[in-house]
């Protein structure tokens, strides 16, 4: 995959990005806003931060879909991840807010991923063995998340939100953190942001450079081809679906103990639509992990941009500008509706044996 090739293939996509950027700048200039006040290092940092949970879920969803399974339940799995991370942290710390250590938080994060794996195993069985409608079962996961996520909190804390348990500390790499801009963005930030960047890269390498990645792609495009090549399609799909749940769970956990410091279960919960944006992110990123991260970054930036506008007191109705990411999603989908899905997404595949 050459850079030139990638650019050529995605020129429409990139074109819209450029247009969007120019439009945003035009608005800023027209409203006589100082661009430097808008596009700050902090803005970039926050955009990446906001993109992190979305990108994690997106990569999970992307893998599932590449393998031929549409996991529309990402939002639900994120909710479970968010609440479970705090729950596990709480239980290992002995059940008091004051005694939570960094280790407890990391255990909570890992614990949430492990629990997500357990949940997704059940989900994967229902999807793959019992051939459930993937759309409906995925929606059910969301509704289950909205119900049992806060319920878990009620059972543990007697309240649908957890106490504040603190969060995983930012790590500042001595020396590198001093580099202007880059230092702030990459070397003085949450380790989970860095972890996400590494996972994005790893996901790319795995998908395009290892045999398992080849199998994943084949499972979604032509499962018979994979089957007749002697690879168990089911196993590939199970792995992908479980991975997607684990990643969404990680995304939720990152949100609750990485970027925030506890679980909030009111309303749509603290996950607040990020899982849905994750799905759109990988669609827009054309099923490429790096592209998905780029799209997550775009949505994060759209959201952070409207916050920047608010901060410098450009008079925008926040209720409406808060909808910007959703509007962007629709525009993006309308412009790139014809994203080529893997050919066999959604179809159950039964090997005859």
């Amino acid at each position, binding site marked *: 995959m050459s850079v030139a090739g990638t650019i050529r293939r995605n020129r429409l996509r990139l074109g819209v990005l450029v247009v969007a950027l120019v439009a945003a700048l035009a608005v800023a200039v027209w409203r006589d806003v100082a661009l430097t006040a808008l596009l700050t290092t902090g803005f970039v940092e926050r955009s990446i931060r906001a993109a992190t949970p979305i990108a994690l879920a997106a990569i999970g969803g992307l893998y599932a879909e590449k393998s031929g399974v549409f996991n529309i339940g990402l939002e639900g799995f994120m909710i479970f991840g968010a609440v479970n991370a705090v729950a596990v942290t709480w239980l290992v710390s002995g059940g008091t807010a004051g005694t939570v250590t960094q280790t407890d938080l990391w255990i909570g994060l890992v614990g949430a991923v492990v629990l997500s794996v357990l949940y997704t195993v059940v989900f994967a069985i229902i999807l793959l063995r019992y051939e459930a409608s993937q759309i409906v079962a995925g929606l059910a996961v969301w509704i289950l998340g909205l119900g049992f996520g806060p319920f878990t909190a009620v059972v543990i804390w007697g*309240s649908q939100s957890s106490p504040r348990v603190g969060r995983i500390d930012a790590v500042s790499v001595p020396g590198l953190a001093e580099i202007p801009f880059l230092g702030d963005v990459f070397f003085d930030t949450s380790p989970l942001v860095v972890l996400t960047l590494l996972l994005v890269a790893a996901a790319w390498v795995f998908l395009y450079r290892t045999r398992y990645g080849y199998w994943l792609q084949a499972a979604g495009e032509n499962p018979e081809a994979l089957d007749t090549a002697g690879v168990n399609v089911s196993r590939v799909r199970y792995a992908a679906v479980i991975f997607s749940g684990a990643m969404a769970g990680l995304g939720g956990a990152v949100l609750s103990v990485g970027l925030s410091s506890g679980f909030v279960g009111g309303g749509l919960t603290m996950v607040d639509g990020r899982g849905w944006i994750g799905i759109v992110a990988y669609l827009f990123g054309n099923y490429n992990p790096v592209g998905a991260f780029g799209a997550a970054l775009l949505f994060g930036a759209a959201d952070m941009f409207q916050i920047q506008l608010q901060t410098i007191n450009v008079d925008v109705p926040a*209720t409406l500008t808060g909808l910007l990411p959703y509007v962007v999603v629709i525009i993006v989908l309308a412009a790139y509706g014809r994203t080529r899905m893997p050919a066999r997404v959604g179809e159950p595949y039964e090997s005859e044996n």
Partner: protein
Amino acid sequence: ADLSGGDDGLTVAIISSNAGFDDQAFNDMARDGLTRAAEEFDIEVNEIEETDIAQFGDTQAEAAEAGNDLIVLVGFQHTEALQENATEYSDTNWMLINDDVDEPNVAGYVWANHEMSYLAGVQAGTMTSEELNHAGSSNDPDNNQIGFVGGEEVPLIEAFERAYVAGAEWVDDSVEVATGYAGSFSDPSAAEDVAQSQYDAGADIIYHAAAASGPGVFDAAQANNRFAVGVDADQSITLEEYSDVIIGSAVKYIDQGTYDCAQATVNDNFDEVAGFNVVDLSQDGVDLVIGQEFEGSMPDVLSENLEAAKQGIVDGDIDVPCDATGC
């Protein structure tokens, strides 16, 4: 909520607003007052979480029919339904938070959100140009910039915002206030992004009115080694882990209100609380309290300013914009 108990004593029910309990805002505070009352009197408290506005009318009726002596309704979304139920169930005592229905068996309570927010503005406006160092955090006395983070941009919260801004400008005309909304009352991460953006832009103190999103503002304060002002309760106590950055909280004593109503019901003198109670500064119903860790370390000018502002408000010399529940 178990309606069966309380054979001899009275029963009190509290029906949540559509945000539900555990909102870290008025639902929780109203409930706290009743919990305290239950410890002191022979009453039984039924918590009814109702998040569906369309059900409010029927849930109120059901709670009344179940024989509750006092029913506390959280939030003005209950008003419409109560207008019918108050006459329908005239033997029941009703307490309505944030609004009023003109019936003898209804006690309407409104806390002066705007006044307490004004005081928060006074504190932030004063402290932004003062030298303040605490536990590694500091502000920038040379930079007159503060911030405000709301949950959703609805009239109720806009009243917080405008009064806060007015309070700060009363201290110092040149103060700059960045205001922003997280878009949700339950997304601390979004609130943190807003606060972070404001701290980046130079704000050193941020006041929030974001309910359960609020802790995100404190997270941002800690991350930036800046300060924040809490809301509703003394959040340097209720959110102790942030007490190092919470220099004060705009508080309203909703718990006292529910406690009073419960007590009045127990003592059979509900008439005394019935009617429209605008609980404001003049009745010590709202206040600005200094954060636990900052007590005693605040400069005198702050207490002077606060005193002057309070006096001005009570005397009517200061005209706080908006009113208790909107603009």
